[in-house]
């Protein structure tokens, strides 16, 4: 038994796993469902393109587009990862990974490779569609495009560990469904789709406790004109604070998530998978 070259072999296996996961996901109808959602969102944006907030200073189309992009990052990183972990725990994927040497490490590496790309897939048609249908809502110079990519990846990095936390904490699909409803509520409270200053001051403070608020703010800072800051708290973008807060959420999440993931992996066994299967057969969820 040699065991030589293990890190390289695990990376190669994880890379192969990530590639197959993406290929199989986006060559099935279910995987392409996210693209259909983009078409619906673009239709809504087209309908509200002439609406504005704050006496004409902020176009509703651009504001909502930034909100949808922000929510897309949250959905992919939190709901996507949490839902996948839940499914993988119940269908035996995680146990399968645990049963092969370094399989769990490889599985998590593959997930880290897949998730950012997974998050970008629905964004690309959204960005292309918005560039064509909603002129003026997308960046016009390379620097701004790169900034948009940076903000997107930072938002995914800030939220991905928390998706893993939710996926490992909730043991049933029903529990996870309740947490997803809470995230929709948080998205509404975090003013992703309307100006935060439209809410009472105390609710504005509550909104700022949520990472979703800062993700939305980051997207608006990159995508909206300078004048749109008038509907933000203090009338300014607070870009430095925004990036620092998102980085902090990412760091704390990356400390907490591995602990919970290790605990979850340790508890995986055939009887846990069998019990989940039994529950689904009996209760339907």
């Amino acid at each position, binding site marked *: *038994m*040699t*065991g*030589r*070259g*293990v890190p390289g*072999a*695990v990376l*190669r*296996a994880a890379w*192969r*796993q990530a590639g*197959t996961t993406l290929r*199989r*996901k986006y060559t*099935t109808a279910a995987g392409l469902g996210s693209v259909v959602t983009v078409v619906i969102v673009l239709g809504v944006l087209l309908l509200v393109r002439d609406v504005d907030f704050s006496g004409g200073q902020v176009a509703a189309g651009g504001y909502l587009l930034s909100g949808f992009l922000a929510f897309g990052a949250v959905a992919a990183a939190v709901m996507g990862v949490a839902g996948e972990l839940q499914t*993988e725990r119940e*269908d*035996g*994927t995680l*146990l*399968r990974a*645990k*049963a*092969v*040497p*370094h*399989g769990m490490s*490889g599985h998590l590496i593959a997930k880290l490779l897949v998730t950012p790309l997974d998050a970008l897939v629905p964004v690309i048609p959204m960005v292309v569609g918005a560039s064509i249908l909603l002129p003026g809502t997308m960046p016009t110079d390379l620097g701004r495009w790169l900034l948009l990519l940076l903000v997107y990846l930072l938002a995914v990095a800030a939220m991905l560990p928390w998706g893993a936390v939710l996926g490992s904490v909730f043991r049933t699909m029903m529990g996870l469904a309740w947490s997803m409803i809470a995230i929709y509520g948080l998205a509404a409270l975090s003013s992703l789709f309307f100006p935060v200053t439209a809410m009472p001051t105390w609710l504005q403070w509550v909104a700022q406790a949520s990472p979703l608020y800062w993700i939305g703010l980051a997207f608006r800072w990159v995508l909206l004109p300078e004048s749109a800051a008038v509907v933000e708290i203090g009338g300014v973008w607070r870009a430095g604070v925004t990036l620092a807060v998102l980085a902090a959420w990412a760091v704390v999440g990356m400390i907490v998530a591995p602990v919970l993931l290790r605990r979850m992996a340790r508890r*995986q*066994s*055939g*009887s846990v*998978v*069998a019990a*989940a*299967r039994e529950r689904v057969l009996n209760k339907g969820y």
Partner: protein
Amino acid sequence: MAYGAKVVLDAVDLDIPRGQVVALLGPNGAGKTTTVEILEGFRRPGAGEVEVLGVDPAHAPEAWRARVGVVLQSWRDHGTWRVAELLEVMGAYYAPYATPEVQRPWDTEELLERVGLADHHRQRIDRLSGGQRRRLDVAIGLVGRPELLFLDEPTTGLDPAGRRDVHDLVADLADLDTTILLTTHDLAEAEKVADRLLILAGGAIVADGSPDELRLQLSRSSEVRLRDLTTGEVSVHAEPDPTAYLTEVLTARRGEVQVVEVRAASLEDVYLDIVRRAEAGDDLGSLRSLQEVTR
């Protein structure tokens, strides 16, 4: 080993030599799955010592994992993947553990041929039949060429043809000197594929021996059915060895009786009797030591 106040396993003492095919039998809740999960390293025992391939599975390094194959009954994963894709990805994790003697992973095409899935390597996994899915699970358990393979109820849900295929596969693996521990509810299956049967009941291994040993040496109820040719009455006599009884009756009542049936207790009779006695709290110590006595 206990779940809360309920003791599931107590004083399980087990030693499996390399290359043996062992079937672990027991009623529901006897602790079969818990025993196997402890041996697989998926669960830590509450007390005692466990050593599998010379290592404590609860603290085993990844190199140990490369020597062990696991086939569970509940896997439903990677439905949209193709058969060969899953085998190749899982196999890639074993590559660093190849040795000059043991090629790891097993070549995908060769392995699919061996498990009878050669014609399905491009098929979506969620479109395989139950039997084909089971064969794929076995193939994944084998992809690292394990020295020890755990099979959890390998034929559950399979039709007769699928069951026969799995039985043949186990026989093939035994020929390759792979040690196999399988759990099953099916006594006929255990008798067919295993060199040795372990019966788990009341939290302990209550019988341990080859199918023949268990059937012949533990039988306490060989039945002789005699019909009186005059009255037509059928009488039943049971004892471990009815030879002397038969000789005596046939000599003393020559021409008066017809032997209807002499029936040795089936393995099922033995199994049910052992389990019933174990669960009633009878002392089965002599059965437990059968392995040492008969070897």
